[in-house]
C-alpha cells in the first residue's frame, strides 16, 4: 500500500522552508544567556503552568503575580527608586513572581504606589460580583513599555467596606518580541476565584471581544480606553485554560479566527 519512492519534489524539501533565517544571532544570545541562569527557573511553559496552579491552590490567599505573560518571552521590568523604568531583567528571568502573606502585600503596595507616581492611569473598574471588584490601571513608560495592573478588593463581612487584597501587574516591554511588534498582547492574572484576562488593542477595527468557555457560556470583555491606549479586559471564574477569545468589529463580524 505504501509507496516510499521519493517523489521528484522531494529534493526541494532539503532546502530551507522560509526565505529568512529565523534562528538569529539575537536568539542565540538569548539562549546562551538563559543557559547560564539557575536551572530552577525551568522552561517557560512550566513557569506559566505553575503560576496557574498556584492561583488555584491559594485562592483564599493574596497572590501577587508579576509579569504573567502569554507570550512568555516578555521580561519584567522593575521600577527603580527614581520611578523610571530600568533596563529589563536578564533574559530568562522568571516571568512570574508569586508572593504570599501580609508582608508581600506591603511590598506590592509600595510598588504599586511607586508605579502610581510615575504615570498610573485608571482604566476601568470591574465588579464581577457584589463582594469583589478590580480596579484596573496602566502605566506607560517612555520607551513604549506598558504596565498593566489590577487592584483586587473584597468586601469585609463585618462592615461591608472594601478592603484591598492585593495587586497584580504584568509588564509588556516595548520592542522586545515579535509578539509585541504585532501590536497586541494578552496576559492573565488571578485573584481569589477570578482570573483577569487582558490585552492591548491597537486595531481600531475591533469594537468588542468575548470569551466562550467549553460549555459555550459567553463572557463579554470590556473594552476600556485611557491615555495609554485601548485594552480589552475580561474577568472569569476559574483558570483561564478553557476559553476561546473572539474579537468582533463594529459591524458584528468576527475579526480573525477564534483562538482557543
Amino acid at each position: 500500500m505504501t509507496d516510499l519512492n521519493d517523489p521528484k519534489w522531494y529534493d526541494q524539501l532539503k532546502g530551507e522552508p522560509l526565505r529568512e533565517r529565523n534562528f538569529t544571532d539575537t536568539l542565540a544570545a538569548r539562549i546562551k544567556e538563559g543557559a547560564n541562569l539557575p536551572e530552577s527557573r525551568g522552561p517557560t511553559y512550566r513557569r506559566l503552568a505553575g503560576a496557574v496552579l498556584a492561583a488555584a491552590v491559594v485562592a483564599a490567599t493574596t497572590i501577587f503575580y508579576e509579569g504573567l505573560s502569554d507570550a512568555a518571552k516578555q521580561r519584567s521590568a522593575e521600577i527603580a527608586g527614581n520611578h523610571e523604568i530600568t533596563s529589563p531583567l536578564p533574559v530568562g528571568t522568571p516571568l512570574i513572581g508569586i508572593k504570599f502573606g501580609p508582608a508581600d502585600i506591603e511590598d506590592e503596595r509600595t510598588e504599586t504606589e511607586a508605579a502610581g507616581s510615575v504615570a498610573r492611569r485608571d482604566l476601568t473598574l470591574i465588579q464581577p460580583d457584589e463582594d469583589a471588584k478590580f480596579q484596573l490601571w496602566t502605566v506607560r513608560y517612555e520607551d513604549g513599555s506598558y504596565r498593566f495592573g489590577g487592584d483586587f478588593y473584597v468586601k469585609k463581612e463585618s462592615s461591608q467596606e472594601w478592603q484591598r487584597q492585593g495587586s497584580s501587574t504584568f509588564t509588556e516591554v516595548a520592542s522586545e518580541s515579535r509578539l509585541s511588534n504585532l501590536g497586541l498582547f494578552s496576559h492573565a492574572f488571578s485573584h481569589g476565584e477570578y482570573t483577569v484576562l487582558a490585552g492591548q488593542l491597537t486595531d481600531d477595527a475591533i469594537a468588542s471581544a468575548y470569551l466562550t468557555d467549553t460549555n459555550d457560556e459567553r463572557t463579554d470583555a470590556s473594552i476600556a480606553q485611557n491615555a495609554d491606549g485601548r485594552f480589552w479586559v475580561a474577568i472569569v471564574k476559574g483558570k483561564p485554560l478553557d476559553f476561546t477569545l473572539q474579537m468582533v468589529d463594529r459591524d458584528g463580524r468576527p475579526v480573525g479566527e477564534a483562538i482557543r
Partner: protein
Amino acid sequence: MDKEGLAHRVNPDPAMLGELMDRYGQDVWNYAYFLVKHRAMADDIAQDTFIQAYRHFSGFRQEASVKTWLLRIARNVSFNYRNAAFFRKALLMDIVSPKRPGRSAEQDYLEREAASEIWRCVLDLPVKLRETLVLHAKYELSVAEIADLQRIPEGTVKSRLFAARRRMAFLLKEDGEDDRS
C-alpha cells in the same frame, strides 16, 4: 559536530552550546516551526530546546545522532507548548490583521516568506502528515528513526508518509491548475 565529537564533552560548556546552535539552530527552529507554525513560539521552543540540551547533556545517548536527540527534545517541548492553553492564547497576537480580516499575521507571513510553492503546500498539511514528511524528506531520517522519535509503529510512519505524499500531489496539482487558469 557528530556524536563522537560530543563524546569527550563530559560536562556541557558554553562553547559546546555555541557549536550546537551554529550547527543545528536553524534545523531545530524549523522543526519547531513545522510543528506550531508560529514564529514567536518557535523562538521559545528553540530556546528551551537548547537550554535543556545544554543542561541535560548527560542524558544524551550516544546511540542517537545529535540531530535526532535535539529534535526529540524540541518535539517534547513543542508538544508541551501546544498543549498549554496559555500558549494557545499566545496565538491571540495573530488574530489582528487590520487589512485582511480572517487572516492571521502568521498566515500572511507564511504566504509571503515560504521559500517555494512546495513548502507552502507542505506547511498546509495537517501537522501529523507535515511532521512525518519533513522528518523524512528534509531531515532525512529513516522510517525507523521517525517511528522512534514519534513513538509510533513504523507502519504508521509509512501510512503517514503515503498520506502526506498523496495530499501533496493533490495540492500541487491544484496549484498547477490555479496557475494555468
